[in-house]
């Protein structure tokens, strides 16, 4: 969505945020109300839809794939997730054709960086490594259906939601002839004469309490803002994409500074920044992440299982 606002409107907005009051009544560190729904697509292994402020709308879907790789060529195990962000033309006519590709690629690359150490960060992600040469590949695809500011934030929430919704089948790995292995789905033993195919496959889920989040912190005037609306994005001097991950090993008594790891910082969209601002913006990002982790944790715990056949946009 293209927004055209005049210089006076911009000035009003900038003066407002410097007083910690934004045009929609929020403070600088506040998020817009958000909706998170999981299990919206039956055709995926895990899916999540996040709506931010009723206008930014992203949909994340995960497809699993059994991937064979060369264990000798890869000395260190690579993290199994790959990200792809696509800007649907529905969001804005400027994304038609190849219009959204560049921004999509940038964002995909940023998520790739933010999740590059996820084998260390997500406790049970290493379970996707099935045997030497075989692993589950987790394709996380995000489609931006509506665009009204702070897409990276919405995407990272959708990714966490989809990862928590993701069900990975348990498998039995047995050594086979010639150093190969055979991988068979694990089905729990059930008495009686139930046919094997009718027994549901055992599934496991990822622990998402420490998943990295990619947050945008923007500099408008002298103020740092999170979750900008399209009008605010017109006034941005410079923007940082900050990836924050919870450190599960830290003790709960320790202060905030120990509790979080930074996985990614990127200056985005041009503009100059003071050295001190980077520090302040990183701190704001961790503070915001703390609140978001709490909110998303509550939501994931309380969300009810969806009824089959429920359609999500209705």
């Amino acid at each position, binding site marked *: 969505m293209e927004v055209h606002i005049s210089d006076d409107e911009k000035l009003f907005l900038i003066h407002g945020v410097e007083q910690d009051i934004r045009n929609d009544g929020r403070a600088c560190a506040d998020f817009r109300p958000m909706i998170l729904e999981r299990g919206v697509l039956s055709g995926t292994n895990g899916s999540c839809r996040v709506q931010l402020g009723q206008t930014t709308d992203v949909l994340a879907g995960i497809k699993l794939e059994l991937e064979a790789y060369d264990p000798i060529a890869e000395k260190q195990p690579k993290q199994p997730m790959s990200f792809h962000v696509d800007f649907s033309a529905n969001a804005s006519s400027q994304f038609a054709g190849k219009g959204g590709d*560049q921004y999509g*690629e*940038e964002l*995909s*690359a*940023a998520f*790739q*960086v933010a999740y*590059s*150490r996820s084998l*260390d*960060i997500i406790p049970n992600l290493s379970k996707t490594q099935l045997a030497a040469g075989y692993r589950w590949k987790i394709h996380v695809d995000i489609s931006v259906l509506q665009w009204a500011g702070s897409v990276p934030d919405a995407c990272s929430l959708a990714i966490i939601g989809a990862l928590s919704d993701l069900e990975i089948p348990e498998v039995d790995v047995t050594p086979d002839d010639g150093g190969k292995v055979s991988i068979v789905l694990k089905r729990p033993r059930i008495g009686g004469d139930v046919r094997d195919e009718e027994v549901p496959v055992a599934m496991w889920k990822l622990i998402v309490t420490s998943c990295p989040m990619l947050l945008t912190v923007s500099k408008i005037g002298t103020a740092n803002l999170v979750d900008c609306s399209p009008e605010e994005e017109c006034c941005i001097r*410079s923007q*940082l994409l900050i990836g924050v*991950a919870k*450190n599960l090993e830290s003790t709960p008594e320790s202060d*905030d*500074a*120990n*509790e*979080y*790891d*930074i*996985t*990614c*910082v*990127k*200056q*985005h*969209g*041009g*503009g*100059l*920044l*003071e*050295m001190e601002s*980077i*520090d302040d913006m*990183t701190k704001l990002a*961790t503070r915001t992440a703390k609140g978001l982790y709490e909110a998303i944790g509550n939501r994931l715990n309380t969300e009810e299982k969806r009824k089959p056949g429920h359609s999500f946009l209705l």
Partner: protein
Amino acid sequence: MNIFANIPFMKYLSFLLLLFTFFVILFIIFVSRMPTIRSNLSIPLTHLNRIDDVRMETDDVEKRSATAFRPLCVKCGVFGAQDGSGYAEFGNTRVLAQITGPEGDGKWEEAYAKVTITLKGVENETKVAELRADMTSSLSAVIFVNKYPGKVIDIEVTVLSDDGGVLSTAITAVTLALAHSGIEHMGLTASAHVTLRQNGDYITDPSTSEAEDAIGGVTFAFVPNLGQTTCVNLYGRIPLKATSPLLEFARQRAIALVPAIHKAVVNSVKERK
């Protein structure tokens, strides 16, 4: 004997010796503060091919201190025919930047110049997208795009060989090319790549093999005469507490590069005269 009899010659000799010692002292001071600079730049044709597996001089760099750069070579203005060109080499990482423009292409009609970046020599698509995004962001911050309405500035970055720290090398090459082209911009950009080890040690400008055991790193670019950053690219997993010192260290390292870049620009101006 004849030689001893020649007193003026002896005087001359001792004077030379004195001068030499003076220079040596100066050089030592210089070396301790400044990065090693390779003189005599010429890019042999062989360097224009990609060098992939040769990780030479890794033994050398093992010996350098945490604050020292790899042997570097910067050059402002490589090709005379181009509108602007620059070359930067840190150890085995070599990047060439060429600028075409600003010129109108008949399509672009906005009131500011369009800056496009073409990357060559990097195969990984995700990496290309990331590099392009970071460099576009960094460059659009310094170039006065409003002064070239309806023009296109095309920057072609060729990565000749990659041995770690491509982004900082590329930013250095591009800033030299910009200086060479005479396109108006806010100032030269100095950029440094620094990684952090598990035990808290920093490594300045590491090669690929040196960066293997790092827990994270940052590429930091800033404009010295404004004192403001144009590019921050932090990756890996770094505790919140450690980020700010790491950034500060990277800034110090970038400042250390400034004289080298200045010198390259001055040399190119001298050559033109």
